[in-house]
């Protein structure tokens, strides 16, 4: 219940935060929403000597559109994602997923950047980032780079983010009109991590599925992009048989950890079932139903 001692820093600029990260290196942890880190610290599973609180860095907040891309500040909270008219219109998969994360109070603190950077395979945004083909702006002492979400997640609690870098912004394309999307998340109760979840974003061309991206949450050591599953449907008229094939392909890449939510068999089957449901729901939305 009580964290160990630490020094607390509340920078007001990104540069200051990076400088602090550089100064304290392994001893430091970034504090975003705090609802993954602080519980770990309260149980003394994490005992950083320095906390760098990003909540006062205004530059990390805000959602804006620029040249067909939505720029989301990494410190945007889940509730801010849900409330965003811009996202609702231009990338609805993101607020859809945010609504399924945690509970109202936690959503006031938890951030999209924190959810992504933590590297927890149970977090929801990574799969959403894969499904929306987002990219991340990473800034460190050496400067800024933009990396695609696909390839960012390396393993459990392990991402492309270097020790001296901060994820500052998420960039995602405005979706074309008529885009279908869905995030189907099976959980034991409201606020739980996914037993399994599937994110789908697709565009139709008449009856043909022109493009589809499928990604899975908590079905492996990281969020998984189900490429072969998507390939089954790309360029085809989606029917039950193809949806079933896609689900099977999605299940084939699953490598979930066993826990009290289920064993590997159950979680894999549920990843398949969530894939089916997400494809159907995305399809229905694309068809205006």
């Amino acid at each position, binding site marked *: 219940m009580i964290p160990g001692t630490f020094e607390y820093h509340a920078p007001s600029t990104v540069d200051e935060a990076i400088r602090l990260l550089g100064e304290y290196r392994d001893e430091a942890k970034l504090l975003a929403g705090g609802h993954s880190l602080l519980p770990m610290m309260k149980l003394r599973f994490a005992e950083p000597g320095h906390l760098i609180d990003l909540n006062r860095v205004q530059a990390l907040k805000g959602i804006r559109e620029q040249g067909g891309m939505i720029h989301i500040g990494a410190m945007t909270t889940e509730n801010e994602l849900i409330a965003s008219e811009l996202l609702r219109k231009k990338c609805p998969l993101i607020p859809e997923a945010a609504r399924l994360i945690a509970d109202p109070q936690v959503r006031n603190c938890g951030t999209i950047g924190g959810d992504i950077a933590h590297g927890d395979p149970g977090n929801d945004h990574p799969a959403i980032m894969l499904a929306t083909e987002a990219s991340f702006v990473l800034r460190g002492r050496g400067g800024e780079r933009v990396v695609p979400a696909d390839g960012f997640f390396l393993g459990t609690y392990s991402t492309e983010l270097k020790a001296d870098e901060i994820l500052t912004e998420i960039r995602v394309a405005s979706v074309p009109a008529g885009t279908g999307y869905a995030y189907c998340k099976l959980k034991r109760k409201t606020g739980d991590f996914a037993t399994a979840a599937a994110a789908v974003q697709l565009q139709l061309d008449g009856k043909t599925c022109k493009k589809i991206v499928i990604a899975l949450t908590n079905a492996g050591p990281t969020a998984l992009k189900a490429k072969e599953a998507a390939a089954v449907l790309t360029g085809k008229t989606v029917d039950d048989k193809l949806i079933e094939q896609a689900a099977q392909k999605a299940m084939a890449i699953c490598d979930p950890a066993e826990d009290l939510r289920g*064993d590997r068999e159950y979680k894999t089957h549920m990843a398949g079932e969530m894939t089916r449901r997400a494809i159907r729901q995305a399809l229905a939305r694309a068809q205006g139903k």
Partner: protein
Amino acid sequence: MATTAEAVEREQKLQGVGCSRRRKEDARFIQGKGTYVDDIKLPGMLFGSIVRSPYAHARIKSINKAKALAVPGVVAVLTADDLKPVNLHWMPTLGGDVQAVLADKKVCFQMQEVAMVLATDRYAAADGVAQVEVEYDELPAIVDPHKSMAPGAPVIREDIADKKEVGHGPRTHPNHIFTWEAGDKAGTDAVFANAPVTVREEILNPRVHPCPMETCGCVASFDKVAGQLTVYLTSQAPHLVRTVVAMLSGIPESKIRLVGGDIGGGFGNKVPVYPGYVVAIVASIVTGVPIKWIESRIENLSTTGFARDYHGIGELAADKDGRIQALRFTALADHGAFNSHVSATKFPAGLFSICTGSYAIPKAYCRVDAVYTNKAPGGVAYRCSLRVTEAVYLIERMIDILAQKLNIDKAEIRRRNFVKAEQFPYTTALGWTLDSGNYRAALDKVLKAVNYEALRKEQAEKRARGELMGIGISTFTEIVGAGPNKACDILGISLFDSCDIRVNPTGSAIARLGTMSQGQGHATTYAQIIATELGLSSDEIQIEEGDTDKAPYGAGTWGSRSTPVGGAAAAVAARKVKAKAQKIAAHLLEVAEGDLEWDVDRFKVKGNPSQAKTMKEIAMAAHTSNIPDGMEKGLDGSEYYDPPNMTYPFGAYLCVVDIDRFTGETKVRRFYALDDCGTRINPMIIEGQIHGGLTEAYAVAMGQQLVFDSGGNILSNSLMDYFVPTAVETPKWETDYTVTPSPHHPIGAKGVAESPHVGGIPCFSNAVVDAFAHLGVTHMDMPHSAFNVWKTIHKLGLDKHA
């Protein structure tokens, strides 16, 4: 019963029995002004935090306090060695066993108490705990109770290895606690041997935990100068605990004050005496300052009184029409490492022998074998009425299993077996005399309300389409109100309860009782009972409980005993007051006592109703010279009530579920709960208890379990994994009632708060199994999580996509 309109109006003003009046205790809670134990701050108070074992079974090689003592703010580190001089490193439990207060030489369950760090605040205490160095030698752990009594099994309780019994009869193995049985074994076996139909099923009642929103804790304060010990603590039975503390500490009981203030939920979790309390008390005596100990949620789920963990075998023998001829239930009870739960002396397995349920079963036998394992101690808790949850779960599951075997409708088979209304009072084959009931009427009312035939028709249609819909029925009889002197006691102390009423001159009153509310609304409901008896407004009757300096001795609140025993005491005490008041009224009105009749709030002269004296007027007179010669002044009444019998609330519940055949998720479409608790004191409060008990039943049936791995590591000990439903998952409850008063209770009331839990759990379970009954499934163990249900679905091949 008031008859004229004017009298009815006066009666309504009293807000007595039957009135859904607002609660009197709410004002402080809605303003955040409750006094829970962690709200208490005393000058000089230190904070105690416990060092716990990471291993389920291990020897302690060494404990090094040096680093911890060097932490700024840490004042002391107590271990078993520090408790030995006062012989408190072990303590007797309410179950007839002994329990380690701080582990001496070995630990027997994961998170067992090893040391307590005392510090100036909780932050320093936590730092101190992190610095205590304990060296362990791990031992093999027993996690499966079926392995506890295997030859050569590791001995868990070396401290009692030579003891031939641990409070409840002979032991056959070092890990055996007791074997308890009831009924006619030979007669029952004979019926089974010849019965036309028998059913048998292995039925698990998994280990769960009451998880009240407030964890356990205390502030112990020993005043060296006065030699007075005061302990504020989360206790559902402050007087019993005070007596235990007196026995343990040697401090005279008259110098011990226990205060149960506001308690944030109990549900049986706050009955046992926990090591934290004992160490805090010793620490306060030794240091001379108050010591606060408040456990965390993980500590609460891992170490305090769990519930159930009964591995049952149910058997019924019946004729071809489903009439049960005999019942044979056995259970292997996993008590954890110490037998610590409250046990009435002759009932180490609680009231398990109520397992004949609502049915007239001629022959019965039950047996419980209790064993130790390397898990936290406990067993009786969680709205269980002392193992009644275990008993009712078994009979309600088994009667469904019998129905399925004989292809008899699950409502019909119950009707065929019910104790009939005219058979009450009915003594069961296992010796309980059910006081009153009308089971048939209750079930019929429910079936009509939900249109049962239509539901079965719908189910048949859905089954034809491959959909999973289940209908669960539970017709349960509860046994509460512990208890009659002749039947039960705890550590020899009878389970009476008490009420002490004082009416003051200006006509308001204060009543103190030996029970202990943890949210049940006693400040309101007891006032309502007394209001109706005395004709004073319940607004003007103050109720006090929990301070052992003020309240008369009682056994506390657990097993739904407050209304049956405390409520009875309140009514009888009030009647004593009323009897004296009648004498004073007669004196004031200059008539004979027999010339008076009672009218809501006053005595009137028969035939001359304008001649009357209200209770208020009498109250003033009682303190003046206006009373009969030789009569004592004042208007008091006091009763220590020894109930003549337990009470037997009952109910009929029906649940409709729809199961997603691809994920295993169960949606509760409808839950209809009819309860009969006899006279209804405050219908609003009753309904609230039903809602709460059903929600806890839903949690137990659908997701709660304390899970251990094979090494004895507890896996589900935080709210991340221990299923406590939110407002989103929780179904909507429909409540209904019938009223069959208890013939022996002064106001006919039976108690109700545990009924929804006892009756609700099997109702959910029966519904889930019923969804698969057409495919030959007879039983599925709880919890019916999506994962568990899916295993059945998948095995049956129901989740294939075309």
